[in-house]
């Protein structure tokens, strides 16, 4: 029975204490909460019975908006609904990604709304964490709709199917429902409360050191930049800042986003976010700024560790694959970064006589020439300068503005990138090296796979994404959300127990 599943006694405390935390509950839902409180206090054993009663209330609550669904967020219904309308879609890989039929099929059959809901709601039962969360839709005509919000996953799904946004973004949880913001008498009553700490790494920031591609295009070679960045940032977030629930998502074209979902991260204010962005940011100055990495010695533990991670990549990705100093003009930049005039002159002479010398050779030349006596400074200075160069060419380049503001919107996971048709899938950091952005399924490919699926539909309905190559990504996401929810529940329980202790 789906009812007792989602209304188990384990779930009720989560629901009611999340209400107390946010302190903003509509009048309508008041009796509902109370009856739950009673049932908990009097006899926990009878809570199933009570839950049955409260269920009626809940239904009333959502009745007007949601009449076709018996229970808003329970899974089986969604599936049966999907199964009841099997549309034979003729989709070929040639169909345009933004074709309305394709987007409709995608939202109807593939987008994991339920997992997304649980991820943002932090509990199985609808709470303000989800209901007051801002969504922003980009409609097919490129209109941008901000301040959308939804009480349940199903209503979000419904609006997606009705409006077919080419993508949607996720913003913060607000103090009141974003849709009601204009009815408030005081503007200050509407303010962002919490949001995941987010990071955005985009290949455009690497354009000055990337030689394989330019602009929007990427290849396996330049994806290594993103791989390096993920490794460095991820370990810093975990080991230094103590965050556990970090979701990396492919942005659909040439970058990656990180969502840090720990409660502690969600509640950071702007100044704290700025400080974390500053901690992780290293490259300073624009194109005219000269040497962009100038760090104190001894190296901060975070930089020391990053350098360890990046050293190896510098040899392969930078020297061998990108070959950034092959041209003379670019080699001049390398020379500028070296602190020693005699060494620079000696190298210049050597390279002038051998144009187009590969970067790896030039890099080796630095030490060789220095050893042969053309070094007026200490070898320590040279080593430090070389470390700075390694960092300048490999250290993550964050779009820091995104991380600094609580109310910055970021594209949701699992939406389709309108340009490439690729789904913004999560990246498993345990196997980050294996991630291939060009192997990420496109929406048309996925829909084709559904049509071609010839498996057994047994007793249990098979969700559509299980029939496609999206399955591993959805499974990964589900695992991520489940572990987040486990911790969240633990935290709420602890808070509750602490609260009780106060009363006695």
């Amino acid at each position, binding site marked *: 029975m789906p009812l007792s599943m989602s209304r188990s006694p384990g779930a009720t405390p989560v629901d009611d204490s999340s209400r107390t935390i946010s302190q903003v509950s509509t009048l309508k839902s008041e009796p509902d909460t109370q009856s739950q409180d009673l049932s908990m206090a009097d006899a926990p054993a009878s809570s199933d019975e009570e839950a049955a009663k409260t269920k009626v209330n809940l239904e009333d609550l959502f009745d007007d908006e949601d009449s076709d669904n018996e229970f808003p967020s329970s899974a089986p219904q969604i599936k049966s609904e999907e199964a009841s309308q099997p549309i034979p879609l003729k989709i070929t890989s040639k169909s345009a990604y933004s074709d309305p039929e394709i987007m409709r099929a995608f939202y109807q059959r593939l987008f994991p709304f339920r997992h997304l809901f649980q991820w943002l709601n932090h509990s199985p039962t609808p709470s303000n964490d989800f209901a007051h969360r801002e969504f922003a839709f980009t409609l097919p005509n490129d209109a941008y709709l901000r301040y959308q919000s939804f009480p349940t996953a199903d209503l979000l799904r419904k609006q997606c199917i009705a409006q077919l946004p080419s993508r949607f973004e996720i913003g913060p949880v607000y103090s009141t429902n974003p849709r009601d913001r204009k009815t408030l008498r005081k503007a200050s009553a509407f303010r962002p409360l919490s949001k995941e700490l987010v990071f955005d790494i985009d290949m455009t920031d690497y354009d000055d050191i990337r030689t394989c591609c330019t602009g929007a295009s990427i290849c396996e070679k330049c994806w290594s930049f993103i791989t390096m960045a993920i490794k460095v940032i991820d370990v810093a977030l975990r080991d230094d800042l103590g965050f556990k629930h970090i979701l990396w998502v492919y942005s659909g074209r040439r970058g990656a986003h990180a969502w840090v979902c720990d409660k502690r991260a969600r509640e950071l204010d702007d100044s704290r976010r700025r400080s974390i962005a500053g901690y992780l940011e290293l490259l300073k*100055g624009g194109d*005219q700024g000269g040497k962009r990495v100038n760090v104190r010695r*001894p190296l901060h533990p975070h930089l020391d560790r990053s350098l360890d991670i990046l050293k190896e990549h510098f040899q392969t990705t930078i020297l061998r694959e990108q070959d950034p100093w092959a041209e003379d003009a670019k080699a001049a930049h390398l020379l500028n970064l070296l602190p020693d005039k005699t060494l620079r002159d000696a190298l210049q002479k050597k390279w002038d006589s051998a144009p187009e010398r590969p970067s790896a050779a030039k890099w080796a030349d630095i030490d060789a020439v220095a050893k042969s006596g053309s070094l007026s400074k200490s070898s320590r200075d040279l080593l430090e300068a070389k470390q700075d160069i390694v960092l300048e060419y490999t250290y993550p380049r964050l779009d820091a503005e995104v991380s600094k503001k609580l109310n910055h919107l970021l594209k949701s996971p699992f939406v389709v990138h309108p340009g490439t048709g690729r789904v913004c899938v999560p990246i498993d950091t345990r196997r980050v090296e294996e991630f291939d952005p060009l192997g990420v399924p496109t929406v048309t490919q996925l829909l084709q796979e559904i049509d071609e699926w010839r498996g057994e539909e047994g007793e249990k309905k098979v969700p559509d994404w299980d029939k496609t190559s999206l399955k591993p990504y959805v499974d990964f996401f589900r695992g991520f959300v489940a572990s987040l929810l486990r911790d969240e529940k633990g935290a709420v329980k602890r808070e509750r127990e602490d609260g009780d202790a106060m009363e006695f």
Partner: protein
Amino acid sequence: MIRHDYSRVEPKRRAYIDPKKKQFAKVEFQQQEYKHRLNYYVLPPTAEITLEEFETWAINRLKVLSELEACSFRNRSPEETAEYMKSILDKYLPLRSNSSRSRDLQEERRKDHYSHFILRLAFSSTEDLRRRFSRLETMLFRLRFKEDDLRERQDFVSSLNLEWEEVGDDEKRELKEALAAVSGLKKGEEQGWFKVDFERVPELVEQRKVVLKRGKAYVPQREQMSLVVAEFTKRLDDALELTARALPRLDEDDRLAPILAHLSQSFMAPDAAYSSSDANIDGLSTITAPAIDNLSQHFPLCMQNLHQTLRRDSHLKHFGRLQYTLFLKGIGLSLEECIVFWRRSFKLIQDDKFNKEYRYNIRHSYGDVGGDANRRGRGYTPYSCQKLLTEPLPGPGQAHGCPYRTFEPDNLIAMLQRTGVSDRDLLKGVREDVGKQRYHVACNRVFEHSHKKEMKKVKDDGTWSAADLDTIVHPNTYFKRSWLLKHLGEGNAGVVNGDKMEE
């Protein structure tokens, strides 16, 4: 614990006064005793002061705060600021240490205490004022904290009861290398470490001056100031928030309100360095998009840099566009012309993409679209030098900000030479200024050099007053003055409209 101003009075009255005699009783407040020179301003003052004291004390403190702000505008280093502020503090808000055994000790501290709370009332009304007040008060607190007598400072800190966990020897041994890397101490040197949640020391985290381990920040003893200051700011911010909420209920006759209003108004001025009259330049016909190339010779270096980058790449990144658009708005380019300007400049971009991704932002800067507040305020004001000098440095591919600050000196000199500044002494001066982080001085130096002749003329003719030739602290002022000086004798000599360009 923080207690709030207004709630405090009532309970006290009740405690001391027999309700039957309430109307005749004289209210008695406990006179606060100030043990420490520094003050966290937790308890509001309760004793009576005269109206005159109320006003003069507040004005004195305001004077100190605005001088402090001026120091930060001019990019003075902490040492220079301390040096400069010394005489001002002695004059307006002296605060001596216990060891001085001055007879006025309590009186000084009382004044400090009261004036702080008066300004708190005056500056809690808007978010902007609150942020500014808290920033300046924090600067003042930091300044005093640094100067304080070592032992008295220690006493003060321990009186605060801040909850800091000291790092034990075992843990220290375990993290030895990491701690040594951060503290920068040689081997054998020892120092104490505190352990706090990283949220409590954002500044130190940002500058990587602490070791982070699983969400805990390990803070070296000598960074204690940062902790104390951060705590001060936090409490002040919270208290200001409370004050703001209580302000509408301030049960007040008309004696204090005008003083408070006046105080907060006089505090507003420096930030609003741009006046719309900068856009009206006599003799300059209506600016059109094609005229920008020609006019750009009068632009300050920051805008010339953006203009050149735009011409070179046919593109500018977001913050560059914003800074340049606002500047162009400031010199009087209309919205329509501005859109034309950008459309033509972004040669490589299709109409469709331009309309979708860029047009809105331009209109938003002009206040043509966006929220109610944005439209009413006619968009953002053009950025001042102070704004450009305090915002974060540009990242890869970005060209916004002040070149005197963001460029490496060699690149800066090269850029200046490209724009026709080649005097060796001048360039040397610029290099020195930049080395001392006096970016606006360098910029003014360049301006004065390239307008030497004209400036002499208007000075000799007496057509321009000294105020008209004051230091430039706004890119739009730079343009206006440059244009006027170069077009003297075209029927507009000396017309600066006489209005104040900036304070």
